[in-house]
C-alpha cells in the first residue's frame, strides 16, 4: 500500500470527507461525525503512509498522466522531506479532528456545519499537495486551494465583523505573497524551460547567479509572507485567532510551515550552490522575528493573538536553524550544516505539536467563557482542571523547559549558533552573536509570557461571571489535548532517537548528501562531540530526586503537621477580582523596558461632573495600547503610494475614442520595432 495508490487513497478519502460533509450539511450531527470521522481515519492512514514511505529506500516519484494542459503535470515526488511534512500534517490533523468532534457542537444551529467540514478537508488536501507536488503549476494550484480554503475557515464565524476584516487582510496578504512566488517560478522556468521540480533541480546550473539571487529574494518574500516573518506578518495575528480553534491549531501548527518547507526545498535541494549572504539574511530575519514576535506576544491580552504572535517567534527560531545551516553549507562545514537543519526540522515538528496543543486548550477555555480577553479569565484551574494541566504542559514545552520537546530543538539550535560564534570572519561572528543574543533573550521573554498566559487565565480568582461558571469541556476535547501533551513529553524524552531521523531527512537533500551513518542513541550529541544531553537520564534523575525529597519532607520530617485553609493576606481590604494583577499589568514593565521598539501609548479620558469647573471627575478611562508600527510606517505609505499612482494613471483615460485608437497605433509601432 505504500505506493502511489496509498497516496491517492489519502487524497481521495479527504475528498470524500469534504464532499460528504456538503451532502449532509442539513444535519448538524451527521455532518460533524462524518467530517471528524474521516479526519481521524485519514489522518491515521497519513501517519502510517508517511512512516512507510519514509523507510522506503527510494523516493516515491509518480505522475498521473491525465493532464490536458501542456505544462501542468500531476507529478509528485515523495522524498524524505515531503514525507516528514505529510507526517507532521497528519499528526496534527488527527488530534484536531478528534477535538473537532466535541468542539464543533457549539456551532450547531448557528452556522452550516457541512461547509466547515468541506473547507476543513479541502484545506488539509491543499497542504498535503503543497508538500508533495513536484511541478510548479501543480504546486501553485495546491497553494491556492490551501490559501482559499483557509480564508473561508477564517471567516467561518462571520457574525463577528472583525473576522471578516481579518479574513480580507489575510486574503490580500497571501496573494501578494503568491505573486512573488509566481515570479520566482517564472524566473526558474525562463532558464530551465520547465516547471518540473526535478528538471529544475537537474538543470539549476543554467540559472545565472544574479537570477538565483533574485529568485532567493522573491521566494523569501513570497514564502516568508505565508510563514509570517516580520514585517510580512501583519495578517497572522488577526487571521489565526478568527478561525475556529481547531483550525487555528492547524494554521499555526502546520500551514505556516509550508512556507518554511518551500524555503528548504528551494535552497537546500533545488538551487544550490548557496550564497553566503542568503544564510546571513535568513539568520538576521530569524533573529528579528523571534525577538519581536515574543515582544508583541507580551503586549497582548487576547489569548489567541498571543499564541499567534508566538508562532512568529517560533518561525524565527526555525529560521535561525535554517540560516545557520545555509551559512555552514557555504563554509563547507557539512556536519554542522546537517545538525542545524536537523534542529530546524525538529523545531518544526515540536512547534506543530505544542502550538496546536496550546490553541486547542485556548479553544476549550474560550468555549466556556465566550471571550478571548484574558482579563476576563482567572481561577479556571479549579473549573477546567484538565485543560489547565494540558495548557501548563504546552506552556512548559514552548518555553523550552526540559524535559519537554521544545527544549531539545532549542538546544540543537543553540549548539549550531555556538559553532558559528567560533567563526573567524568578523562579519559572520557579529551576525552569530546577534542571533545568539536574540535566541537567549527570546527564551527568557517566552518564559515570562507564558507565566502571564497561564497564570492570568487559570490561577487566582475569577475576574468575570463567565469564568466563575465555566465547566470542564467535553471528553473529546480532553482526549485530543491530553494526547498532544503526552506527545510533548515523549518527543522530549526520545529526542536522542528522533534526532537521527531528522539528520536522515537533512542528509537526503541534494546539497547535504552525506553518507555517514548516525548512531542511534538516547542522547543528543553535537557533531564535534562538544556537547551532549540525555532527556531520559534527566527525567529519571528528576523522578528519583522527587521521590526522595517528597518522602523525606512529607513522611519522615513532617509527620503530624496540619494544613489549615485560610484566606490570602488582604491588608484589611476585601479581596475581589479587582485586586488581582491583570495581564496588561503583568507585562507592563517589560513593555516599558522595550518602549523604543513597542511604542506603548497611554491615553487618558476624564469625564467631569461639571465641564466648566474641572475639579470633580466623574469617570476616568486609561487606555494602554501599542502602536502598529508596520501599519503606520510600511503598509499605510505603500497604500498611499499605490493610490497616488492609480490617480495619475487615470489621466490617460480620457474617454475619447480617437485617443484610444492613437494608443493602439503607438502600441503597434512599438511592438513592430521590438520584433
Amino acid at each position, binding site marked *: 500500500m505504500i505506493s502511489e495508490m496509498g497516496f491517492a487513497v489519502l487524497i481521495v478519502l479527504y475528498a470524500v470527507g469534504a464532499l460528504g460533509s456538503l451532502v449532509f450539511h442539513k444535519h448538524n450531527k451527521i455532518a460533524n461525525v462524518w467530517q471528524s470521522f474521516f479526519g481521524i481515519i485519514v489522518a491515521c492512514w497519513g501517519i502510517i503512509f508517511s512512516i512507510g514511505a519514509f523507510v522506503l529506500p527510494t523516493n516515491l516519484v509518480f505522475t498521473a498522466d491525465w493532464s490536458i494542459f501542456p505544462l501542468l503535470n500531476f507529478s509528485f515526488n515523495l522524498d524524505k522531506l515531503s514525507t516528514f511534512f505529510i507526517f507532521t500534517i497528519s499528526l496534527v490533523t488527527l488530534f484536531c479532528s478528534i477535538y473537532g468532534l466535541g468542539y464543533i457542537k457549539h456551532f450547531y444551529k448557528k452556522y452550516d456545519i457541512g461547509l466547515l467540514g468541506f473547507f476543513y478537508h479541502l484545506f488539509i488536501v491543499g497542504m498535503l499537495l503543497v508538500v508533495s507536488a513536484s511541478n510548479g503549476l501543480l504546486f501553485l494550484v495546491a497553494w491556492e486551494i490551501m490559501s482559499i480554503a483557509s480564508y473561508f475557515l477564517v471567516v467561518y464565524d462571520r457574525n463577528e465583523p472583525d473576522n471578516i476584516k481579518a479574513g480580507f487582510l489575510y486574503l490580500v496578504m497571501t496573494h501578494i505573497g503568491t505573486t512573488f512566488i509566481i515570479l520566482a517560478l517564472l524566473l526558474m522556468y525562463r532558464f530551465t524551460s520547465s516547471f518540473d521540480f526535478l528538471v529544475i533541480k537537474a538543470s539549476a546550473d543554467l540559472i545565472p547567479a544574479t537570477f538565483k539571487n533574485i529568485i532567493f529574494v522573491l521566494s523569501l518574500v513570497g514564502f516568508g509572507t505565508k510563514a509570517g516573518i516580520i514585517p510580512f506578518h501583519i495578517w497572522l495575528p488577526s487571521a489565526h485567532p478568527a478561525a475556529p480553534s481547531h483550525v487555528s491549531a492547524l494554521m499555526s501548527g502546520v500551514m505556516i510551515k509550508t512556507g518554511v518547507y518551500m524555503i528548504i526545498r528551494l535552497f537546500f535541494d533545488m538551487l544550490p550552490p548557496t550564497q553566503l549572504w542568503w544564510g546571513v539574511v535568513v539568520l538576521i530575519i530569524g533573529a528579528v522575528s523571534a525577538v519581536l514576535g515574543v515582544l508583541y506576544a507580551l503586549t497582548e491580552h487576547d489569548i489567541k493573538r498571543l499564541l499567534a504572535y508566538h508562532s512568529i517567534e517560533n518561525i524565527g527560531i526555525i529560521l535561525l536553524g535554517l540560516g545557520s545551516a545555509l551559512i555552514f553549507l557555504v563554509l563547507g562545514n557539512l556536519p554542522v550544516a546537517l545538525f542545524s537543519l536537523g534542529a530546524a526540522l525538529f523545531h518544526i515538528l515540536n512547534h506543530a505539536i505544542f502550538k496546536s496543543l496550546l490553541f486547542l486548550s485556548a479553544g476549550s477555555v474560550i468555549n466556556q467563557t465566550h471571550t478571548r480577553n484574558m482579563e476576563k479569565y482567572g481561577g479556571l484551574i479549579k473549573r477546567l482542571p484538565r485543560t489547565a494541566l494540558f495548557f501548563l504542559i504546552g506552556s512548559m514545552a514552548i518555553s523550552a*523547559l526540559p524535559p519537554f520537546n521544545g527544549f531539545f530543538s532549542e538546544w540543537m539550535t543553540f549548539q549550531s549558533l555556538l559553532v558559528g560564534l567560533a567563526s573567524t570572519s568578523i562579519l559572520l561572528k557579529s551576525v552569530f552573536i546577534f542571533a545568539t543574543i536574540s535566541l537567549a533573550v527570546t*527564551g*527568557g521573554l517566552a518564559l*515570562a509570557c507564558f507565566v502571564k498566559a497561564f497564570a492570568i487565565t487559570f490561577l487566582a480568582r475569577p475576574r468575570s461571571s463567565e469564568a466563575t461558571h465555566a465547566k470542564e469541556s467535553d471528553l473529546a476535547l480532553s482526549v485530543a489535548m491530553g494526547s498532544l501533551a503526552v506527545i510533548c513529553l515523549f518527543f522530549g524524552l526520545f529526542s536522542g532517537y528522533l534526532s537521527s531521523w531528522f539528520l536522515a531527512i537533512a542528509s537526503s537533500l541534494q546539497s547535504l548528501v552525506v553518507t555517514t551513518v548516525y548512531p542511534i542513541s538516547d542522547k543528543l550529541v553535537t557533531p564535534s562531540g562538544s556537547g551532549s*544531553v540525555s532527556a531520559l537520564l534527566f527525567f529519571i534523575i528528576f523522578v528519583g530526586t522527587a521521590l526522595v525529597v*517528597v518522602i523525606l519532607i512529607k513522611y519522615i520530617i513532617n509527620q503530624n*503537621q496540619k494544613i489549615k485553609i485560610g484566606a*490570602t493576606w488582604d491588608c484589611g481590604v476585601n479581596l475581589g477580582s479587582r485586586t488581582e494583577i491583570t495581564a496588561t499589568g503583568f507585562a507592563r514593565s517589560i513593555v516599558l523596558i522595550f518602549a523604543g521598539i513597542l511604542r506603548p501609548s497611554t491615553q487618558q479620558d476624564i469625564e467631569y461632573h461639571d465641564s466648566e469647573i474641572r475639579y470633580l471627575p466623574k469617570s476616568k478611562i486609561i487606555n494602554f495600547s501599542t502602536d502598529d508600527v508596520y501599519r503606520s510606517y510600511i503598509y499605510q505609505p505603500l497604500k498611499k503610494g499605490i493610490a497616488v499612482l492609480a490617480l495619475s494613471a487615470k489621466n490617460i483615460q480620457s474617454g475619447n475614442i480617437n485617443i484610444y485608437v492613437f494608443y493602439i497605433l503607438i502600441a503597434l509601432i512599438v511592438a513592430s520595432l521590438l520584433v
Partner: protein
Amino acid sequence: MIIFIGIIQAFFVPAVSPLFIGLIKKIKARFQNRQGASVFQSYRDIWKLLHKDEVISSDASWIFRLAPFIVFIVTVIVGASIPLFTTVFKQLLTSDLLIVIYTLAGGTFFLALAGLDTGSAFGGFASSREMTISALAEGSFVLSLFTVALIIGSTNLFVIADSKNILFNNFFLPTILAFFSFFIVMLAESGRFPFDNPATHLELTMIHEAMILEYSGKRLALMEWAAANKFFILAALGANLFFPWGIAQNLNLLPVAIGVIVVLVKIIIMCLVVAFIESVTAKFRFFRLPDLLITSIVLSAVAISLIQKI
C-alpha cells in the same frame, strides 16, 4: 570510591548552602557594627519551619502546593550536575550548560506561578518583576557561559572546569569580561543587591520575598532552602568555571579534600564581595535594573567577539 564521591556530590549543595546565607548575613551584621546571628541560624530556621503547621490560601490551587517541591528539586538536580570539587563526572549527561540554565528557569517558572496563584497583589507584582528581570538575565546567563564554552570548546560544565588554561594567554580578557557579566547575572538570579533586597519586608520593593509571602511551614522552608541552593549553585559556577583552580581531577582522597576546601574558600570570597556590595550600595530603582542587565549582555558579547582562536 566513585559512588561515595557521587553521593557527596549529590548532597553537597543542599547540605552547605544555608551556611553561606548565614555567612552573608553575619558579614553584613558586622559591617553594621552588630553582633548578628550565628552563621548556622539558617539551618535552625529551616528545621523550625519544617516542623510547623501550614496555612494555605483558599484561592490557591495545586500549583501553589506543588511549586515548592519543584523549585527545590530543580536546585538539587542542578546542584548535583555542576562541578563543585571534582571534575570526574564528565560523562554526566545533565551537566550541559544549557540544560542547567533551562532547568533553573523551570524553577523560576513555578516560583512565579506560585506567586500569582493566591491572587494577592503583592505576589502578582513580584512575579511580574521577577519574570522581567529573569527574562533579561537569562540572555546574559547563556552568553556569559557560552564565552567560556567557546574558549574550551565544550558545553559540558565539567570539561570547562577541568581546563586550566582559561585565564592564560589571549583568553584572559574575554574570561574576565564574561565573569563580570556572569556576576551581574548571579546577583539578579539569586535576588541580591542591587536587584532585590533579601532582608526586606517592605511591600513596594520586595521581589522574591513577595512571591513567597503566602507560604508557611514546610513549603516556606523548601522555598528558602531552594533560594540558598540557587545562590550557592551560581556562586559555585562563577568560582569553578572562570577560576578553575584547585578542583580535583581524579578521585584520590587528597585532591578531593583540597578541592572541597578550595571551593568553599572561593565561595566564601564571593560571599564577602556580595556582602560588601550589599553594605555599601543601595537597591536600584526597578527601571534602572535593565541597564545593568543589558550592560551584562554587552560585556558577554564583547567577550565573545574578543576570542580569537588560532
